[in-house]
């Protein structure tokens, strides 16, 4: 049930996010978009479990990558992003989830919409599109606080440079690079309408991010005429509207 993974690499994506590469001898393989449960156990037996999306593409290798954003008041994420070292062992359960997934048999246009660390399961889909040799047209709209908070920037750029059917749009909420055409701010209806696939192409949409972001983004996609059953969402965190 719980599998043991050995940490084989650690890589800081941003000042607050770290990618952890685990090797699992009995990993059964996963589908792009799935997540795992990670369990930490203290010497007295106390344990804490949290779910993290898988960032790596499905492959035959026994490797799984997760990217963890450190939450200021978190119980598990500070340990994973600051304490964990190469050769440490971690317990994992999964892969989990059969809804928020992209399979290489899908040929329709794909619209990815990420808010902050919501990019992680979408990155698994982008990476799998490349490794599986898919020609499905992908668009990514990636909303992030500031340029320094972007995960996987160079890799995303390289993938997009190599294949014009993967296009990237960044939207910054607090601080944008100099000369950026759009002032910093939340995503809005115009941005969604101008940068995502038109509904007549019947794209499948994957929206992942904090709850208020997903509520807004999925609502705009729906308002653009995309059928609700083609909009798959994954939310995390509180609603932000009340305690």
């Amino acid at each position, binding site marked *: 049930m719980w599998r043991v993974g050995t940490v084989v690499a650690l890589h800081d994506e941003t000042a607050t996010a770290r990618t952890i590469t685990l090797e699992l001898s009995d990993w059964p393989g996963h589908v792009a978009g799935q997540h795992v449960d990670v369990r930490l156990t203290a010497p007295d037996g*106390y344990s804490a*479990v949290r779910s993290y999306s898988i960032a790596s593409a499905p492959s035959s290798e026994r490797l799984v990558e997760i990217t963890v954003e450190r939450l200021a008041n978190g119980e598990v994420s500070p*340990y994973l992003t600051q*304490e964990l070292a190469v050769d440490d062992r971690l317990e994992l359960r999964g892969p989990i*989830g059969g*809804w928020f997934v992209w399979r290489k048999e899908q040929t329709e246009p794909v619209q990815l919409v990420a808010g902050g660390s919501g990019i992680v399961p979408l990155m698994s889909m982008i990476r799998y599109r490349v490794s599986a040799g898919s020609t499905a047209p992908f668009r990514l709209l990636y909303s992030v606080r500031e340029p320094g908070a972007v995960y996987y920037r160079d890799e995303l750029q390289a993938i997009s440079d190599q294949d014009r059917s993967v296009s990237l749009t960044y939207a910054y909420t607090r601080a944008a690079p100099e000369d950026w055409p759009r002032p910093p701010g939340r995503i809005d209806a115009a941005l969604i309408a101008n940068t995502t696939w038109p509904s007549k192409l019947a794209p499948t949409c994957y929206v992942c991010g904090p709850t208020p972001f997903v509520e807004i983004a*999925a609502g705009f996609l729906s308002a653009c005429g995309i059928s609700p059953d083609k909009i798959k969402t994954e939310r995390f965190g509180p609603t932000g509207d*009340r305690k």
Partner: protein
Amino acid sequence: MAIISRGFSGRRSAPDAKLPPGQYLTTDFPVLSAGPTPHVPLDQWEFAIDDGTDVLQRWDWKSFRELPNETITADLHCVTRWSKLGTTWEGVSLDTLLANVKTDAEYALVHSYGDYSTNLPLQDLMNKQGWIAVRFDDEDLAPEHGGPARLLVPHLYLWKSAKWVRRITLMHEDTPGFWEGLGYNNYGDPWREQRYSGDE
């Protein structure tokens, strides 16, 4: 045998008998939904109970709100591991809604606006275990939390408490709902930690 995480001590909440295994306390009210939030106008809303062929009972919003209302205090346990204790709801008991329904069905398949569904034994909706809730914390239920009306079956993991409920079909055979067909447990008892398929 668990592997000890070198240097991990955890941030423990006070031991609380109300917390099922593997859950942590939150004071927020997180949201988990598979798709966009449906917005159902009250003048188009209806709730029905059927047997798969015939509608047995049907209410529009006005007639539904005329039914006897109950205040419910419940602990919520989400399969994503947060628990929220002592929440207050208002709604109509399924005992009230099923009072005039004669059936020998053993299962229920609950359908939502937006095509979500979830299954559970009919017994689990009865005897003060299930409600159709319309208010949370003294306010009308917000759309992202399932408004205008959601099922509330707090003794099971929260995905069983279908948001935006529109119909309950009484069944002679158990049929998996949305998450139940996608790797989650068919029953979902938090105290037995029945999260995923295969958990017993």
